[in-house]
């Protein structure tokens, strides 16, 4: 099932009009953070793969292209989840779409 297939999109229990971002959600049974970026929304896994600290307070950097854990500066591409300054590390990232006031998420392959 491709990410473009409507069936792959999972509704999130977040009201985008009123929620504080990053907002906690669940996609595919995994806890995620939904970030608001310049380009819309993006989902990332809950914790940093480096040492497991929460990515809730991670900062969006690189003109919206990357996210950086505040604890040790491990930085990941929001497009693919690949580590930038920490090769070999990767986070799961999620496409987030808004439709009729409802957010949907699908894991980025």
């Amino acid at each position, binding site marked *: 099932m491709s990410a473009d297939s409507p069936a792959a999109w999972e509704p999130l229990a977040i009201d985008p009009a009123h929620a504080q971002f990053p907002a906690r959600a669940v996609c595919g049974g995994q806890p995620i953070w939904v970030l608001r970026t310049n380009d819309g929304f993006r989902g990332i896994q809950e914790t940093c793969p480096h*040492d497991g600290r929460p990515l809730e307070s991670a900062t969006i950097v690189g003109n919206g292209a990357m996210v950086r854990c*505040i604890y040790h*500066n*491990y930085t990941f591409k929001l497009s693919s989840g690949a580590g*930038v*300054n*920490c*090769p*070999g*590390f990767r986070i799961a990232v999620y496409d987030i779409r808004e439709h009729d006031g409802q957010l949907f998420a699908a894991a980025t392959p």
Partner: protein
Amino acid sequence: MNGSAAPAVVLANAHVIDPASGLDAVTDVTLRDGTIAAIGGPRAADAATIDLHGHYLTPGWIDVHVHAYGTLGFADPDSIGIYQGVTTFVEAGGPGVDTFAEFVATMSGRTATSLYAGVYVRPLGIIGLTFIEDDVRNWLDIPIERWIDTVAEHRDLIRYLKIGAFERYGPGPLKLAKGLAETLGLPLYVHIGEFAATTGETGSLDIFRIAEAGDIITHIYTGNLGGVLDTDGRVRPVVREAERRGVLFDIGFGGYNFSWPVAEAAYAQELVPHIISSDLQQFNVTGPVYSLANVLSVFLALGMPLGAIVERVTCNPAQALGLADRAGSLQVGAPADVTVFRVEDAAVTLHDCFRVARTAERSIVPVMTFKNGQRYDADLARCQDEANWFMQIAEAHPPAACAHFSTTQRAFLRSLNAELGAIAWQPEAAKRQDIRKATVLQHAVHRAAATNELGLREALDALYRSFVEHPFAVQSGLFLLRLERAFVLERLLEVAAGSTAVA
């Protein structure tokens, strides 16, 4: 840099603390020809005077634990040196014996801050992935002949042998490293503090039994497993016994290994470090470490007297590393390495590595540094520049510096493309990294340099600048191992051709 070409400079009216001589008074310090010319006494008629009333003046600070080179290093190492009051620092394990030639090639003469080396027991040096550092399998060989030759050749540069003490190691590797250090005539410098949760009794405490007088154990206020306190918060007897034998304790604040609760409990039990160091690196410079001065403020907050703090960044580390002939004191005739700072009476928040905060009433703020008599005004923001600590690969275009490569550098890149074309590698997930392959890739870099009779410094400069905007110096094999092979081969040819428009 603020040049001061005057033949003599009187640093007047500062509160001078020189623990090596016991001096603790308001007086003048005169610098001339890059050395300490006088303490007190009449002012030279020809001297320029800098009035430092209200400031403290000490020997230039020594930071025995920084990461200026390698996978944790900085583009601008002086930003954590002379611009922060530190006149001498020691690279804590970036190079190993197999990468030491690269360390020398890339770092010699690069810093105004005096740079010394602690060499890691793993031939590649520190890899920079915490969960790999504790796997003894990636030590590979201990090439004793090359160790002896390397240390003999660079005796003045190399100041200690570094190893981490981990439960996964057990005591055997620590004994091997201790034996190697003895063979080489170097102190052993040992990381404690597990990177991950371990089960059962931690093996890292073995190092407190194995280390001997003059060896240094760092991260002694770590909040991770393998620390100095037992489960009841009491200093372990084995730690006390090591201290009695003359083993030295160091802080190595870092991004993982300083805990306020541990520090407060240990300090209250008079387990006090002999040396205070920062462990500054890419991954902690934006907090919680910031600077060695910030770590010193932490000790003010713990209640350590200012003179005792100064001792731990001047004469104590100088003696521990055999540098007392050139650093750590204000002895007349010694190099004019001087740090000027003030103690600010204003509340500051100081975090440990676990976001635990304490409010301190005072903090130590560097004002200026003199290195061999040359003045540098403090600039604590300099190290915070993202370009200094964020090594980002220029994926879209070759960096602008490629346009200035020499013909030989381009020929080297072409040869390197051919060498690497015969080697398969993948930037695999960190836990599966093929560390042995890093050595294979490094040999290819060195062969390509030799083929073109290009010095290692110029070769590595061409390699780094083909991929990154700012001149980070990293073990070349590890550097390549982390990049996509197809991208590397394409980029090398593109830059070698020299015809592509640069960003």
